[in-house]
């Protein structure tokens, strides 16, 4: 569940939406002095059963004596209970921001105290998992600006990891703010995750990091050739060849990485890099992290590889987290996919595009078993299928467009934009239609939403944290529900438009790759901070280090708060037309650029 910013306007709705099990308190006592409500949760009395207000005052006094924080400053409070400590901070002139880990205590307070009045003075966030604190939201600026973080005693008893998590995230957000690095992104050999690697690289560049996208897809054909060459040979012969080639390819990747000298190396699923080379990269002081963007149940390479990374980013939680721990990798941070809003955005189709891509219903993706079964019911309708691996012998093939070729990202965006209802059914090799246990959310979900296009998507366990069902996205859990939703929304274009609009707003707010990469870098800062000496300095810090004042003018054309790599400076000097003579600084840049290029 994402961090919820609770306000006087929305607290009732949030409380109502909580599942009953999550709201259960042991009991609520009346304090012996003043009969104030004092909850008990899991055997612990949350505040003083005698005088919770006095207890809170003493808490704040003790804080004031040991801290440099002065009235007027923001104090982050881990835990709120029924708000007595926050009120005490307010009375002393501080600006408390509370982070409550317990839905039950939140719910209880809405029943037992004047929550509306409280929330008019105190900023309140309901936090299910501290990891969510790195996700986009208003809480980030409050957390980053807090001069101190204090923890109520009950939090330490009942939610022992919460305080540390809160402090760690706050420190990570502050540390990563304005910190820029060189990052190498190692792509997979092929497949949809290659595009994700590219989006990740673009996302990192968009937030100011210097990125080298190491595209290893060219090596993929060699692996395929080895396999084909040894067709009919024993498996161990094929494996030997593949291993030898992987060793070679991995070595080239390391050379490329070393030449770029990044602080962080981001590897994506199925990149051909060996454990030994990962060790070499880490020993060189680089932080090597892995974004596993596949279904862990189907693609098992992580069992062998996960522990070799400094930090592991899955797109699934729960069971996968436990499995990772068993594999020796306790350092993980859930990081869902997203959309590249520079490729996926609303764009009304031209007449030609409408003709080529337009349809009442479309599906874009590979012909997995469950999809073929599910879409048979749409035979004969205005329904277009795009993508590969749809068997030509099946009746559904007549809906497959352009021979079932691979579709580019740009074309995909056009398809989404030209379709009235996009069908988004997550793949499964073992279910007929909807996978009832499906958890992660595919990239298509974000991409369709980013286009401001309408979709019907099968319900996934992790989807509610990402989109508000009914408000920002429409889901189905069965064939019958799918057809019922389809019929309804085909007849209600205004509802479609409204939901699509809100869905896009949600993507832009919380689900861009730039945002994901910001979260990734912050997570790295929390768990395995990059070496300080590898930080890139922003342009504003450069001029003071350059004795010749002429450099200030040359650098003045670049954003002061972002780093600047030499190649970008060179491109600005050599690009475009000019009228003024080359300056000394520009000529030195050309000279260095020439030497870099290998000019004599």
């Amino acid at each position: 569940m994402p961090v919820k910013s609770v306000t006087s306007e929305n607290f009732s709705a949030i409380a109502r939406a909580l599942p009953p099990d999550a709201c259960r308190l042991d009991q609520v006592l009346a304090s012996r002095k003043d009969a104030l409500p004092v909850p008990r949760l899991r055997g612990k009395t949350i505040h003083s059963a005698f005088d919770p207000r006095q207890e809170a005052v003493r808490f704040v006094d003790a804080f004031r004596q040991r801290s440099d924080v002065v009235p007027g400053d923001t104090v982050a409070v881990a835990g709120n209970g029924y708000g007595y400590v926050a009120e005490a901070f307010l009375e002393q002139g501080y600006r408390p921001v509370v982070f409550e880990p317990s839905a039950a205590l939140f719910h209880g307070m809405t029943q037992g105290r004047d929550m509306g009045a409280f929330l008019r003075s105190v900023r309140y966030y309901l936090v299910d998992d501290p990891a969510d604190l790195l996700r986009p939201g208003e809480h980030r600026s409050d957390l980053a600006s807090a001069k101190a973080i204090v923890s109520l005693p009950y939090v330490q008893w009942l939610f022992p990891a919460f305080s540390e998590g809160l402090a760690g995230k706050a420190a990570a957000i502050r540390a990563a703010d304005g910190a820029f690095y060189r990052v190498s992104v190692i792509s997979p050999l092929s497949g949809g995750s290659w595009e994700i690697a590219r989006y990740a690289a673009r996302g990192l560049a968009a937030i100011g990091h210097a990125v080298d996208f190491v595209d290893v897809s060219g090596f993929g054909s060699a692996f395929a050739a080895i396999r084909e060459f040894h067709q009919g040979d024993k498996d161990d012969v094929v494996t030997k060849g593949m291993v030898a080639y992987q060793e070679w390819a991995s070595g080239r990747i390391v050379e490329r990485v070393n030449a770029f000298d990044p602080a962080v190396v981001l590897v994506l699923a199925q990149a051909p890099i060996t454990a030994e080379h990962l060790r070499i990269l880490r020993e060189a002081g680089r932080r090597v992290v892995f974004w596993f963007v596949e279904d862990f149940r189907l693609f098992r390479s992580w069992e062998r590889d996960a522990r070799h990374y400094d930090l592991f980013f899955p797109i699934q939680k729960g069971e996968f987290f436990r499995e990772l721990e068993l594999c020796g990798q306790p350092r993980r941070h859930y990081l869902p996919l997203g959309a590249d809003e520079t490729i996926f955005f609303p764009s009304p189709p031209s007449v030609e595009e409408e003709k080529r891509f337009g349809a009442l219903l479309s599906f874009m993706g590979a012909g997995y078993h469950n999809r073929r079964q599910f879409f048979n019911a749409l035979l004969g309708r205005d329904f277009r299928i795009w993508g590969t691996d749809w068997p030509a012998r099946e009746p559904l093939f007549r809906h497959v467009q352009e021979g079932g070729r691979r579709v580019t990202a740009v074309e995909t965006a056009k398809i989404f934009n030209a379709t009235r209802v996009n069908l988004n059914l997550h793949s499964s090799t073992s279910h007929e239609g909807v996978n009832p246990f499906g958890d992660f959310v595919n990239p298509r979900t974000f991409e369709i939403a980013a286009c401001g296009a309408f979709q019907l998507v099968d319900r996934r366990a992790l989807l509610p944290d990402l989109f508000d069902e009914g408000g920002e996205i429409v889901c189905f859990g069965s064939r019958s529900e799918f057809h019922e939703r389809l019929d309804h929304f085909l007849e209600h274009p205004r509802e479609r438009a409204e939901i699509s609009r809100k869905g896009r707003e949600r993507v832009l707010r919380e689900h861009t790759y730039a945002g994901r990469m910001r979260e990734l870098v912050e997570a790295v800062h929390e768990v395995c901070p990059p070496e300080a000496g590898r930080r890139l300095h922003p342009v504003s810090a450069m001029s003071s280090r350059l004795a010749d004042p002429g450099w200030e003018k040359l650098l003045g054309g670049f954003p002061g708060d972002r780093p600047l790599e030499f190649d970008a400076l060179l491109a600005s000097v050599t690009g475009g037309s000019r009228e003024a003579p080359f300056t000394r600084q520009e000529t030195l840049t050309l000279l260095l650029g020439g030497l870099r290029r290998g000019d004599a």
Partner: protein
Amino acid sequence: MPDDILLLNLTRLGDLVQSTPLAVGLKKAHPGARLVVCAQKRFLSAAQLMGGVDEVLPIDYDALKDVSSDPSSDIPSMVSKTEDLLAPLLRRKFRMAVNLTHTRTSAYLMYLIDAREKSGVQMSPEGERMIRHPWMLFLHNFGANKQITPFNLVDIYAEGGGVAIHRERIPLSLRLSGAGEGWADRFLRERAPGGGPLIAVQTTASDARKMWHPSSFIRMCRILKETARARFLFIGGREERELVEKIHAAVDAPGSAVVAGETDLRQLCALLRRADLMVTNDTGPMHLAAAVGTPVVSLAIGPVYYCNTAPYGEGHVVFQPKLPCAPCSFHVRCVHPECKSLVTPEAVAAIALLRLRPEKLSPGTVPDGPEFAGCEAYLTGWGEDGLMDCLPLLDRAPTERFRLERGYRTLWAEVLLTGRRPTGSDRPISPEGNGILEALRGLEALASKGIAASNDILRHAGAPAAHLSLLNRRLEEIRSCSRSIRDLGTAVPDANGLSLMFILEEENLREGDLAGSARENAALFGNLLLRTRSLAYLLTEGRAGQIAGEKREPADAVASRR
């Protein structure tokens, strides 16, 4: 006013030695000036040997390259390290700066150098290539058109730097002052004793493409060992010693020694001076041998062309393989360097033996033979134009290729040294004749068209706006002519000597008013027309003797000596 003259020479040992006549000439022409050579730090000892030089300014070029490519460096670090490395050069003021390094990097440096006059390749304020001085344009041409720029680099450097070496010969000049002489005597006494002729052999080169096969060196040495009881000094660098020792062992000639990696430059020069002959690849020590007066037999292999970097002086011999792809471009990566096999050990040994004799060699006097089938041998000497020349040593009929080279030589010598209207330039090219003549007719037509368009612009330059479309048409015609001239030179490499000079001269035109530009263009096309016609004349009607170097003794005089 600063009195310093700068020679920017960020090249290698050989080029530094080859620029000494320029240095000496400049020093003589400007006796009050201080002559400064800016050289790469790793060739500092070579630069310090140069005659005529008052000061050597070393630039750590290797460190500059490291700074430019250090991935852990940020912009301020790169800039400050670069400024530190270049400070000794860039904080100085010069009266004149001559760039002998025809590279892009040197062009940037020239822009930054504070000098009142500048010559050689440099960057214009607009960021374009700019080459001052006609001989320096020629130097740039030289890289692309080796076969049709038959001048020696020493002369090009000198003339380009403003020293009229064609009027007053200046030899290569090294400041040795007796250093290394005692060491050399001791070395020879102890390590290479004997009475037979002493031959220095350079079997390696900085570029593998320029290296003759080691097996060919071995065979050649064995022939000389057998026929002349020759002794050998195998020279080279420290890193080459292992190969050199293998060659020495295979030759197994008494009184021979390996000296690779054991000498500094002064000691090497002292040894070379004591050698009776040097047989060598085209590489730095070759020029040292020429500078100390030792006769040289050199091998123009791979990207080397015999006349461009031949040992400077009289009486040296250069072998040139006969192959359509020779010389190759520096950018070529050859997988089958056949040129190395076309110069045979027997041929080189034969010429070496001749050269060891006291009698002077003359052009066209050495009998041809099967050992020379795949190559030419050229004898260095002084041309009628006062510059160094290379003439065929073997008694064989001149080839068409040779006639073309001589034609270009005569043309450029006239154009660049005399400033006269070149011979035969007043006659239109005959409509007959194929090959190069067809290309020259093409250039003639384009040049004429360019002149007509330029003159038309001049006529209408000050006219009212009504003529604007006409002016635009003429400008487009000029641009089209330029493009076609470039294309023709690319399509017909033998004509590229003219095309590329045109292109380089055109680059030097600076934007001005319409009339001024039209006048400059008219002159540019006009020069091309004259040169094209002159070359055509020289190739078709030029008589023996009129083409420099084609003068030969009558055949009976040759026969009577055999």
